[in-house]
C-alpha cells in the first residue's frame, strides 16, 4: 500500500471513529457546578486570595523576606543634604579689625594732627631713627600693617604670634606716625563665631572712608532734628 492510500485510509478511519457522548447526568452535574460557582462568586478578591490553602505560605515568605531585608541591611546611611549643612568654621582665619575701628583710628589721627603739630616733627625724627635701627623689621611690619588695614583679614597663626609679641613697638609707631595704618587687633580663635564674621567686608580707600563718615554724620544729624521736632510738637 503506497503513502497516498495509507493517507486516504487514515482519513476514512478518523471520520469513522466512534462518537463519544456525554454521560447521562451531564446536565444535572453542570447545573450543580453552576450553582456552586455562583456561591463562590460572591467572595471578594482578597478573600479568595487569602483562602488558607492558596497563597498564605507565599505571602508569609514574602513578608519575612521584606522584614529580613530591612533589618539586615547594613549599607543604609542617613544621607545629609549638603545644602543644609552649616559652613565649617575656619579657625585659621582671624579678623584683625572692623570698619568702625578704622574710622575711629582715623579720627584719632586727625585729632592728633590738629592738637600737636609741633610734636609731630620730633616724633618723625625718632621714627626715622628707629627705621635706621631696624629697617628690615619695620618694612616688613609696615607692609603687613598696610595689608591688614586694606584687607581687614589676615590669615595664618604665625601672624598672631608676631603681632602679639610686637604690640608695644607697633603702638609706639602708631602714636608717633599718623601715616601708619592702625595696629592690627589680635583676636584669639575662640573669640570668633559664625555670626561675627563679616563676609561682605571690603577694602576702602581713605576718601571712601571719609565719605562714609560724612554720610553717618548726616544721618545722625537728621535723626537729631527729627527727634527735636517730635519733642517740640508734643506738649
Amino acid at each position, binding site marked *: *500500500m503506497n503513502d497516498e492510500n495509507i493517507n486516504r485510509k487514515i482519513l476514512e478511519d478518523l471520520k*469513522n471513529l*466512534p462518537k*463519544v457522548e*456525554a*454521560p447521562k447526568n451531564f*446536565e444535572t452535574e453542570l447545573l450543580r457546578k453552576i450553582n456552586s*460557582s455562583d456561591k463562590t462568586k460572591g467572595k471578594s478578591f482578597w478573600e479568595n486570595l487569602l483562602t488558607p490553602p492558596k497563597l498564605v505560605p507565599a505571602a508569609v515568605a514574602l513578608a519575612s523576606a521584606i522584614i529580613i531585608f530591612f533589618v539586615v541591611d547594613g549599607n543604609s546611611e542617613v544621607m545629609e543634604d549638603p545644602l543644609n549643612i552649616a559652613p565649617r568654621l575656619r579657625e585659621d582665619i582671624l579678623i584683625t579689625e572692623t570698619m568702625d575701628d578704622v574710622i575711629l583710628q582715623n579720627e584719632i589721627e586727625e585729632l592728633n594732627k590738629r592738637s600737636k603739630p609741633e610734636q609731630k616733627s620730633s616724633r618723625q625724627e625718632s621714627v626715622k631713627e628707629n627705621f635706621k635701627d631696624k629697617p628690615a623689621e619695620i618694612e616688613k611690619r609696615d607692609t603687613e600693617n598696610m595689608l591688614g588695614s586694606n584687607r581687614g583679614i589676615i590669615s595664618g597663626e604665625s601672624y598672631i604670634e608676631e603681632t602679639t609679641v610686637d604690640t608695644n613697638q607697633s603702638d609706639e609707631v602708631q602714636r608717633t606716625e599718623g601715616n601708619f595704618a592702625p595696629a592690627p587687633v589680635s583676636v584669639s580663635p575662640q573669640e570668633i563665631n559664625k555670626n561675627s564674621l563679616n563676609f561682605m567686608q571690603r577694602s576702602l580707600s581713605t576718601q571712601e572712608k571719609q565719605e562714609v563718615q560724612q554720610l553717618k554724620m548726616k544721618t545722625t544729624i537728621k535723626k537729631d532734628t527729627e527727634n527735636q521736632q517730635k519733642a517740640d510738637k508734643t506738649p
Partner: protein
Amino acid sequence: MERNFNDLTDEELILEFQSSGNEKAFEILVSRFKNPLINFVYRFLGDYDSCVDVVQDTFIKVYRYKDNYSSLAKFSTWIYTIAGNLARTEYQRKRRRNFFSIHDYGEEKKTFDIPDEAYRPDIQTDMKMKSEIIQKALLKVRDTYREAVILRDIQELSYEEIAEIMKIEIGTVKSRINRGRAELQKYLKDIYKD
C-alpha cells in the same frame, strides 16, 4: 405564549439567553453542543473524566460570560474556542503532573476506555481495536497539529472555522493539518502495511 426554542438557531438562542437570561435557551445550547464538544475534547486529551470536566467548565464559562459573546461570530466557533483553550490548559497541566509524578515516570501513556455503555455493544471488535490504536497515535502527535487534525478530520469543520477557533491564518491551519496527518501516518504505517 411560550416560544419554541428548539426552532431557534444557536446564535438566536445565545442572544435570547443574553437579553432575558432565560435558562431554557441555555439548556438547549447545552443539549446541542455537549456531544460534539465531548468528542472533540476526548480525542484531544484521551481521558474521558477530564474531558467531561473540561466540557462542563466550558458551559460554565458560557453561562457566566454570556455577555462577552459578540453576535458577529458564530456561536459554534466561540464555544469551540473556549473548549479548545480549556483542553489545552488541561493537557499541559496533566503533562506537568505526569512529568513530576513518581508513579507515571518512565511509563508509556495510558489509554482509557470509553465508559459509555451504550457504545460498546455496537462497536465491532476490530474497529474498536483500531480506534484505540488511532487514539494512541493521535495523542503522540504534537498538540498544535493534533487540534487542527481533530477539528478538520473528526469534527469536520471548515478551514475558516478552524482558523477562527485557533485564531490563526487559514494557510497555517492547512500546514498544521498536513503536518499532523504526516505525523499520524508515520505512527500508523505498520497497521496499514498489508
